[in-house]
């Protein structure tokens, strides 16, 4: 469009009409394209969900949640050890990622406001957020799995600990940035009121500011949690996977996404079935977390605050 505006001046009225029609048509075409692209984007999502529900629901049974995998070639078995392993890994990751993340967020929002250091930290967190998860796996392999030293706990072999650390580090930037944003929404008057009552600063931050912003901060933590819950790449050569029950931090451990990956590429139909079941469990967990987050944020717990 936008071309052919000088055809001849004697046919001005028709020219105008033509242009108006072309413009209207372009407008309609653009609207149609936008709608079409939205449909095209939503389609795979619905396709994935429907297929996942259809395949996954039929493969879920009690054994799936209570049994460990059978030896290859045997039918049946479940992913109980992978579910437990994921829970342990995610618990460890949260124990590492959430406190450090929130601490970083408090620094950015309360102490470092407007300083160069805060800008640098913010930027580094964004960069860390963009680091591919596989690179994180390689780095943790080099840091914890490979070196055999007394300084580093659980070092020298594949272990649940290294997997948890990898996931925990991946949580930090997300938690940090969302906490910062939520803390910034807390009105100054609340802080001033606390300080005017003679509350020490640390106490005011912890039990006034952080508490006011806590729904938002929890939201951020759950988002980070949902994100690392499905991470596979950093676990490939840290947690490694395990066919048996294991709760030790010192040993390789199974994880749901890892198991899905291994089963998906295996040649057995029964393992494909388990992979779909695992995928359904994982996605239900994540969708629950994300919807909860959306519910909490859309209720406007903090909206009116600023």
């Amino acid at each position, binding site marked *: 469009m936008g071309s052919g505006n000088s055809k001849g001046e004697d046919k001005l009225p028709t020219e105008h009409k033509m242009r108006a029609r072309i*413009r209207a048509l372009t*407008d309609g075409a*653009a*609207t149609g*394209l*936008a*709608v*079409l*692209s939205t449909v095209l*984007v*939503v389609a795979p*999502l619905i*396709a*994935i969900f429907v*297929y*996942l529900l259809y395949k996954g629901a039929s493969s879920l049974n009690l054994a799936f949640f209570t049994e460990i995998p059978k030896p290859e070639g045997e039918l049946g078995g479940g992913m109980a050890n992978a579910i437990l392993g994921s829970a342990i890994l995610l618990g460890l990751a949260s124990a590492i990622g959430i406190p*450090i993340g929130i*601490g970083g967020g408090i*620094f*950015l929002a309360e102490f470092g406001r407007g300083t160069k*250091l805060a800008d*640098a*930290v913010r*930027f580094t*967190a*964004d960069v860390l*957020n*963009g*680091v*591919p998860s*596989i*690179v*994180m796996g*390689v*780095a943790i*392999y080099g*840091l914890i799995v490979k070196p055999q030293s007394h300084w580093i706990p659980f070092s020298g072999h594949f272990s649940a600990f290294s997997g948890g650390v990898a996931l925990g*580090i991946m949580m930090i*930037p997300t938690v940090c940035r969302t906490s910062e944003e939520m803390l910034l929404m807390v009105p100054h008057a609340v802080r*001033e009121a606390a*300080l*005017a009552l*003679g509350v020490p*600063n*640390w106490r005011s*931050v912890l039990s006034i500011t952080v508490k006011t912003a806590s729904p938002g901060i929890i939201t951020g933590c759950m988002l980070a949690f949902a*994100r690392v819950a*499905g991470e*596979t*790449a950093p676990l*490939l050569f840290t947690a490694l996977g395990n066919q048996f029950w294991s709760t030790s931090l010192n040993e390789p451990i199974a994880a749901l996404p890892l198991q*899905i990956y291994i089963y*998906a590429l295996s040649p057995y139909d029964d393992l*494909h079935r388990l992979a*779909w079941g695992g*995928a359904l469990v*994982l996605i239900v967990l994540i*969708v629950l977390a*994300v919807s909860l987050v*959306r519910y909490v944020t859309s209720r406007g717990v903090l909206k009116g605050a600023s």
Partner: protein
Amino acid sequence: MFLRRRKSVCPGHEAVERLFAQGFADACASFCGLVTSCSSLPGSLRKVNVNVPEIHISQAQLQAEPGPPEGQRPADGQPPAKAAAVEASAIRRFLLSRGNSAITDLGFHWLMVLCALSIFGIVVLIAVELVKGAQLSWSTSGLDFFFRAFVDPDTKLPMYWDPVNGHFSALPFVYGTLVSSFLALLLAVPLAIGVAVFLTEMCPEALRGPLAFLTELLAAIPSVIYGLWAVFVLVPLLREHVNPLLQQLLGWTGFFGSDNPTGLGFVAAGVILAVMILPIISSLTREVMTAVPHSQREAVLALGATRWEMIRMGVLRNARIGIVGAVILGLGRALGETMAVTMVIGNTPEISRSLLANGTSMASVIANEYGEATTDLHFSALTEIALALFIVTIIVNALARVLVWVVTRGAPARVN
């Protein structure tokens, strides 16, 4: 405009703080004799004492600034601001020595700083570890690692990746990563912009929330589930229907050769990557589009533009830098994506012209071989690939952040 808004939030706070500090300093100054002479302080003052660190901050601000505006001073006779500051600092020292919350406050402050610094520490540790690991490979082949390959003297064919004989070249991986990522961008960018335009400018209010939620959900699905879906649904679909069509229609270009019956390959990887980066690009594009002031839209509409012309001239043109940033951010994500790509790209370290051929990518070779590498050189070569990926994604992400920031930094001004 933005600056003014930002300030308008602060003055109330600053004024209160200043007044409070000033008043307290004055009170302290007048109580000075009392404090030093009396052994026991009045209870109320004792409570106020806890606030000393806060006053410390305010006092610092006070000293940095020329002085509080005239109207904010208490009316009764008092020493000038400078004298008050000096007085207060003496009292502060006295009060600090009484063991209040200053130490815990300072400890808390530094704990938070430590948390923030640990983010630096992590990035530095990752970088150091990768550089250390890549050293062997770097000293063996240097930059040639990324650009040249060992050629077999007998067959005259390049041997890109031959762990058994110790020949390593990252060429096919770089090629595969670039091809699959750009294919993904090619598919995803028009769609993402379409979605963003629809959601911000055209969508009925009732649909907006659910649709935005759905696209966000697309971002929350783990990559391994995308891979699972791609392996069992997308790849058969491509194999049965799409690839033959592509060969028929575009086979003459040479980009769609017909020698791969599996359905895996660059096209499959590109499609699944496109699905994965779509939500990132579209949500960021939406963000920068809503940051465009409403007055721009209104002005274009007032000149008689149709809706599309308004979007094109009023919105997209103003948001273009931010959209480029969003696209680059999507590229960063695509470059580092591992699991879904590994599952569908075919994992063959070769360079072929056909997009339907099996390929491999930087991330997938690491995922496939790192756990099973045997020789030091093999490890080192894989680590060097990881390092390259790390550096490239940092550069790409930084670039994207700067571009998005350029557009959205003035966003709050839109309210007016």
